């Protein structure tokens, strides 16, 4: 019995240390990302950006936090009291919970215990990540409804429809990754991407390409090479899940003031704000783990546990930079275009890619069946595209979408 107690005690202690360290690191990274976003966008718009607090304005995020902390926080008289109070927490908590299954680095050995750099290596990691994304919807829809105001309500319902639509595409885009990795655990998926692509013999006997294929011995063995369509769907749907531009319709300041958090102020607003950036960081971390080899990367002999952490942070920040770049580049989608993209493009594309991955990878399927599947798929794609040029429909008559069939 005491053995069980000891075990639970040890687990709880190590767990607590991990949790606190990751939590603080995540909050700091999110604060850094708020600063990074303002600085990067300022740079892209030929402005200076924050430059008052600390060197290069680095302390801006902390200054903002302190300011919001000391601001008056009032609840509109029309608001629903308790729902209004818990909505910010409901928005923030799920956004950081998803980081629990992401492996942040290799492992270290403390005494006789192996301590992995992951909070919880559960074997349903991908499902857990998707579940936390689904829970995040509650914060937005509760905030929108509880405010007792019209703009937040519109932002809230918009957001619900948007988030659930893109959640399907997000889930389906991860099925091919589970297929090639044979596991839903993010640790397994990262482990499967170790090393380099290795010796490629595909071009043997062809003069120039034969020489060039040696380059694969230094190319890292990431899933992005074979699963780039899955990544494209995942990335677009993920940005929609985080309510980021160009999918920031729930906030849409030019239409809905600030959408679901119009009526929030002070520290509660800060929670929505920070929650969004934590969500961006976590999404980038998951994308890195699934498609870009996670923490794998070359390191030096000294401090072998440190290099994976640095690689992971660097890769994550690159993906965050991409998301910020998109905000600076793309205009916001109109609502009907948003639904069109989610339901009529991303979901069919994700289903198609699942079938392709299955056809290529299932063992023992005869060549004729594979050929037949590909012919049918190609026929479907041609039939779909042949119904009229979608780009033309987009430009000329966006109301009708592309499925009224007027070529």
């Amino acid at each position, binding site marked *: 019995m005491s053995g069980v107690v000891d075990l639970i005690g040890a687990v709880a202690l190590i767990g607590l240390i991990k949790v606190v360290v990751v939590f603080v690191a995540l909050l700091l990274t999110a604060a850094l990302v708020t600063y990074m976003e303002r600085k990067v966008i300022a740079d892209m718009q030929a402005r200076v950006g924050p430059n008052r607090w600390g060197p290069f304005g680095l302390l801006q995020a902390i200054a903002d936090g302190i300011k919001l902390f000391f601001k008056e926080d009032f609840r509109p008289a029309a608001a629903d009291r308790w729902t209004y109070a818990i909505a910010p927490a409901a928005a923030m908590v799920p956004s950081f919970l998803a980081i629990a299954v992401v492996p942040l680095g290799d492992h270290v050995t403390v005494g006789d215990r192996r301590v992995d750099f992951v909070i919880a290596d559960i074997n349903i990691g991908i499902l857990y990540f998707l579940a936390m994304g689904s829970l995040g919807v509650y914060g937005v829809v509760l905030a929108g409804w509880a405010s007792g105001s019209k703009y937040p*309500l519109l932002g809230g319902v918009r957001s619900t429809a948007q988030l659930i639509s893109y959640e399907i595409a997000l889930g389906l885009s991860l099925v091919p990754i589970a297929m090639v990795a044979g596991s839903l655990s993010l640790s397994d998926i990262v482990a499967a991407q170790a090393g380099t692509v290795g010796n490629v013999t595909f071009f043997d006997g062809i003069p120039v390409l034969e020489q060039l294929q040696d380059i694969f011995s230094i190319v890292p063995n990431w899933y992005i090479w074979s699963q780039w369509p899955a990544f494209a769907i995942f990335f677009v749907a993920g940005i929609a899940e985080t309510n980021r531009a160009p999918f920031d319709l729930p906030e849409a300041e030019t239409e809905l003031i600030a959408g679901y958090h119009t009526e929030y102020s002070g520290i509660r607003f800060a929670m929505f704000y920070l929650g969004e950036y934590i969500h961006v960081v976590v999404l980038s971390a998951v994308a890195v783990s699934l498609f870009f080899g996670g923490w794998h990367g070359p390191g030096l002999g000294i401090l072998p546990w440190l290099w994976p952490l640095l690689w992971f942070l660097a890769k994550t920040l690159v993906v965050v930079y991409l998301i910020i770049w998109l905000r600076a580049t793309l205009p916001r989608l109109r609502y009907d275009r948003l639904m069109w993209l989610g339901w009529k493009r991303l979901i069919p594309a994700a289903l198609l890619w699942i079938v392709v991955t*299955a056809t290529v990878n299932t063992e023992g399927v005869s060549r004729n069946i594979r050929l037949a599947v590909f012919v049918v798929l190609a026929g479907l794609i041609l039939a779909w595209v042949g119904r009229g040029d979608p780009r033309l429909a987009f430009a000329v008559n966006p109301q009708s979408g592309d499925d009224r069939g007027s070529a």
Partner: protein
Amino acid sequence: MPDSGVFEYLAAGLRGAVSRTNALPNCAFCVLVFGLSATLSYPRGSPRSCSHIATSGAVPAVPRDYFSQYITIGIFVLVGLGLVGVTLQLARLVRPNVPTREKYTTYESGIDPIGRGWTQTNVRYYIFALLFVIFDVEAVFLFPWAIVFERLGTQAFIEMLIFIAILAFALLYAIRKKMLEWL
């Protein structure tokens, strides 16, 4: 066991199922199905085995720290909730509180709000919610298959093609019925 209570019945069935499927979830869905089928068929026979959980030979044990991972997630939830609560309470202590009547009205572009905030919304949102339920369940069914599809061979491959085709047809139907048209 005709005279045992229904709950004992359920518990015994579930225990049997868990001891048989101790390779525990690569796939939550299968455990669900197994637990259910084992529970329903408990005294009469064992549930049929699923091809991707090894049932021959020794039953593999649950990894020792299987549940500790979930304990750690529990700690994470508690720490997170605690931090959010503490932050809210601290802010409550230090922030000013100067109520005026105008502050407590809702925002409506500077004019006094007209009517209630809870206005009617478009029924389209509801239709999307219905469609969401269908397709999200589809994704749940795909994951268990995705883990093991390589080994299942041609038959499972064809079956899954049919499953996906049916759902793709449902999506096509929704599109043709203009359910996915906004406005």
